[in-house]
């Protein structure tokens, strides 16, 4: 396979004016309302300046005027394609402040739902990434399967995308009676489709040639920029909060942390970030299988520990979980009232996006689209 490298420009030899081009805010491949101000030398990108804030809706300020349970639906709307995962660090933080120990069965339900949501998120990420490169069929297959996961979430919470399902001290409703069978059916289907997508897209020579050796992110740069999730793991750093600081009951499951290996080109290129997501789906399937096998059978009142009025003691806590896109954390400052004094969000996509100018210089403008797609951002979370 041909090695493609960053193109060095000899500015003395090239006699063209540089051009500044606005990509977005309304552009299908920016995955939302993002404006990239791109400086071009011919077709080669010399500078990228992201302009964000088009979806800014004062999330942190709004939270200061709401009680803790009222915040949960807003948290859903940060990264709106993995809402279950978003709710978790928030309710976990408040439970920690209140000193609530939630029943084991609810922990298992939360793990299963969070891992299902991780699969759904990675399905979208891989699907849209393929679509960016011109592969349309895998997009349809993955979206079809994602609908099975969303159907299960709808059975649980009534919502298709925004759930308000994890409550402080428990859950909104009990799981449906067919929960286990539905989960197993989903896992079976996910595995089938992944095998198919592997043949169609991931191992496709055209796709590999398109995305290897572009957007190379070395491990030390990734750490310095604060990247997390598949972006950091794609560079070969095995940083996963589920393993490094196991929260909830993650220490009971046997699964691998997937890291990029530079299998097709250079370590930390777009291919590596993508393959991490593809393989993480299988790891999530493994976790769900184990959780279903271990989950206690007896019925539990999921609202038994939900406080009538959430009044946290004075304190400051930083609570984080491993979200599909990386580390999502909430720095909750409580002054002893029913509302947070300050609710700082460490938004994963916001920080992962900040590395884009660093890794897209020297590539073609069409590569920039692939590099942006490989970071997997959601603008609802970037802008908050």
């Amino acid at each position, binding site marked *: 396979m041909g090695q493609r490298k960053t193109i060095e420009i000899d500015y003395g030899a090239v006699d063209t004016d540089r051009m500044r081009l606005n990509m977005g805010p309304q552009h299908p491949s920016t995955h939302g309302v993002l404006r990239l101000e791109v400086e071009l030398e011919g077709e080669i990108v010399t500078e990228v300046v992201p302009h*964000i*804030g088009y979806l*800014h809706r*004062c999330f*942190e*300020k709004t939270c200061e005027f709401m009680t803790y349970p009222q915040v949960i639906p807003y948290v859903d709307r940060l990264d709106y394609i993995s809402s279950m995962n978003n709710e978790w660090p928030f309710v976990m933080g408040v439970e920690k*402040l209140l000193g609530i120990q939630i029943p084991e069965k609810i922990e298992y339900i939360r793990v299963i739902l969070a891992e299902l949501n991780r699969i759904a998120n990675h399905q979208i990420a891989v699907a849209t990434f393929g679509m960016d490169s011109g592969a349309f069929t895998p997009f349809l297959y993955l979206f079809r399967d994602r609908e099975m996961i969303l159907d299960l979430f709808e059975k649980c919470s009534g919502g298709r995308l925004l759930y308000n399902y994890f409550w402080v001290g428990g859950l909104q409703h009990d799981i449906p009676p067919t929960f286990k069978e539905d989960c197993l059916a989903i896992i079976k289907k996910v595995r089938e489709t992944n095998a198919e997508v592997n043949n169609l897209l991931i191992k496709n020579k055209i796709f590999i040639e398109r995305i290897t050796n572009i957007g190379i992110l070395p491990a030390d*740069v990734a*750490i*310095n*920029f*604060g990247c997390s999730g598949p972006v950091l793991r794609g560079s070969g*750093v095995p*940083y996963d909060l589920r393993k*490094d*600081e196991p929260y909830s009951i993650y220490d009971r499951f046997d699964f691998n942390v997937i890291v990029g290996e530079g299998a097709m080109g250079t370590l930390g290129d777009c291919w590596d970030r993508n393959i991490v997501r593809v393989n993480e789906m299988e790891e999530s399937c493994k976790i769900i299988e184990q959780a279903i096998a271990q989950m206690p059978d007896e019925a539990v009142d999921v609202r038994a520990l939900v406080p009538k009025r959430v009044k946290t*003691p*004075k*304190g*400051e*806590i*930083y609570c*984080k979980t491993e979200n599909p896109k990386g*580390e999502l*954390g909430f*720095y909750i*400052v*409580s002054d002893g009232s029913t509302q947070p004094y*300050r609710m*700082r969000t*460490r938004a994963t996509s*916001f*920080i992962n996006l*900040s590395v884009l100018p*660093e890794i897209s210089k020297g590539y073609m403008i069409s590569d920039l689209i692939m590099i942006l797609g490989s970071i997997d951002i959601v603008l609802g979370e970037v*802008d*908050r």
Partner: protein
Amino acid sequence: MNSNEIFDKLKSEFGDDIISLTEEKNYDPYITVKRKNIKQICLFLRDIDGLNFDYLVNLTGMDWGKELGVVYHLYSISLKHRIVLKVFLSKENPVIPSVERCWKSANWHEREAWDMFGIQFENHPNHIRILCPYDWEGHPLRKDYVEQETYHGMRVPV
């Protein structure tokens, strides 16, 4: 390394710049430091063997009512330990050296802290707003923030 050892190490190097270590229930252990040498303290935390805080998890501005502040959440990927740094700033003159040179992720975090709290970061390479429009007035996350009445002739909803 636990937070006591980190505190001792900082105290022996920087002396009076390090004010106190707080370990209370419901609080992540945090070290209060003075603002003047924050960049040197951060470089020390990042580079010295045994500390190796190579990962800036989170940086945020704070409005404590009487004064402003900056909170740094640090983590070491190689050694897997955490610490929180806190700096208090006066409301009249909220200026603090930028730590962008230590961790690049501070770039956008500090822009956000400027945008939301009006905290100025000295020697920041791109000291402009990030989430609000570039010509917005005021700093919304301050507790005493009052919205501007109009923006480019449009009424700002209340």
